[in-house]
């Protein structure tokens, strides 16, 4: 059994999902970390849902939403776009599932940035965008990277939601975790063993790296 096709597909999907989440997860996290309102907490909880919902439930929502008759699907259909049974569908599923990993880590990292430093930058004349790119983002970078590695590992292992929306088309939407399931179903133990090993090693490596990058809480005393 060819393990390269599912492995490469999984890496492609996980990298896309991580990249998208770096963009959106970081932006949302920064927004939430500065938005002092109970609504921010509500939004945070809603965005954490993918972490606790059964992946199949999430996949079902995606089908309902993005399927040909779904709310967004109808609209996408006009441009002849249908994410169902495509690798892009798998990216959507993985992105959603892994989103809280980056969002949570990035929010904690942004909240850990001493507000005095941002004030100091403003008083020195820096426009808000520069304050973000020159102070907040570099100081939160470690935490965000740690979150990104967790998100990558999570996206790489995504199974339930991916199967629901992207299906199990060998060479097209069959990711590593789906291929493992298929191999076991087909009685291909050797194939399953190899793929399980590869998946395990990749995830352990990502976790180790994330652990090394996790912020240490020995820096400054809290404000006032």
């Amino acid at each position: 059994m060819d393990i390269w096709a599912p492995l490469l597909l999984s890496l492609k999907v996980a990298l896309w999902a991580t990249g998208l989440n770096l963009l959106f997860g970081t932006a949302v996290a920064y927004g939430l970390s500065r938005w002092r309102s109970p609504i921010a907490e509500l939004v945070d909880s809603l965005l954490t849902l993918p972490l606790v919902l059964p992946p199949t439930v999430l996949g079902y929502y995606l089908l309902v939403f993005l399927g040909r008759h779904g709310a967004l699907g109808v609209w996408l259909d006009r441009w002849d776009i249908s994410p169902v049974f495509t690798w892009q569908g798998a990216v959507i599923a993985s992105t959603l599932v892994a989103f809280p990993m980056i969002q949570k880590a990035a929010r904690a990292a942004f909240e850990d940035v001493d507000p005095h430093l941002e004030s100091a930058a403003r008083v020195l004349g820096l426009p808000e965008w520069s304050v973000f790119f020159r102070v907040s983002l570099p100081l939160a970078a470690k935490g965000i990277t740690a979150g990104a590695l967790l998100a990558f590992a999570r996206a790489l292992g995504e199974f339930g939601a991916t199967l629901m929306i992207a299906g199990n088309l060998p060479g097209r939407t069959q990711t590593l975790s789906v291929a493992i399931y298929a191999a076991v179903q087909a009685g291909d133990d050797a194939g399953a063993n190899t793929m399980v090993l590869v998946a395990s090693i990749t995830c352990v490596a990502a976790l180790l790296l994330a652990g090394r990058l996790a912020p240490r809480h020995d820096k400054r005393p809290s404000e006032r």
Partner: protein
Amino acid sequence: MSIDIAIHRVMKDAQRRFELDVSLRSDRRRIVLYGPSGAGKSLTLRAVAGLLKPDRGHIVVNERRLFDAAGKLNLPAQQRKVGYLFQDYALFPHLTVAQNVAFGVQRGMFNPRRHGQLPPSAARWLQSLELEPIAGNYPAQISGGQKQRVALARALAAEPDVLLLDEPFSALDPALKNRMRRELTLLQAQLDLQMLVITHDPADAEALGQHVFEMHEGRVRSESSVSV
């Protein structure tokens, strides 16, 4: 050259309500706000810097109107041209001493390069505050007195109209305190700097203040001016 502040702001949270109602005017160069912690000194300083918006009143520094509730004027912190020395110095931990000092001179999207050419004003302040030997160090690697000089150089390199100092010596040990007080007074005289210092330490008020305002529970209780 003068400072004219009259601001009002009510701060509320679940536990308490605090009313800041400060008015002070001075044409002296070294002005000190003196009082116990919780008197509203820091809030006043933050309001001058544009980090806190008063409910009403005005803030005028050297004839420049920074805030005027009646005229709906509230210059953002970025345009106020104030130098702010934070109590904990607020040095950027990810940048070297030289990058910290050049920080406000270069206002674009990127931090000053680590080994790049320094803007002239940053280079000048690094030199005159004797920071050249530690220019390549990070804030975590230098002493308290050095940190304060870096913070001072960073603020001055941006060429502010007024320098605000929040408990400038509270983090230093007693011997260093005296030395830095002398250094600061000397610097102020050399540059003819407009300074507004807040402190709870009577020795600071005595050493630095030409015009001392004593604050208590959000208000100025008394003022005393040293004759020239």
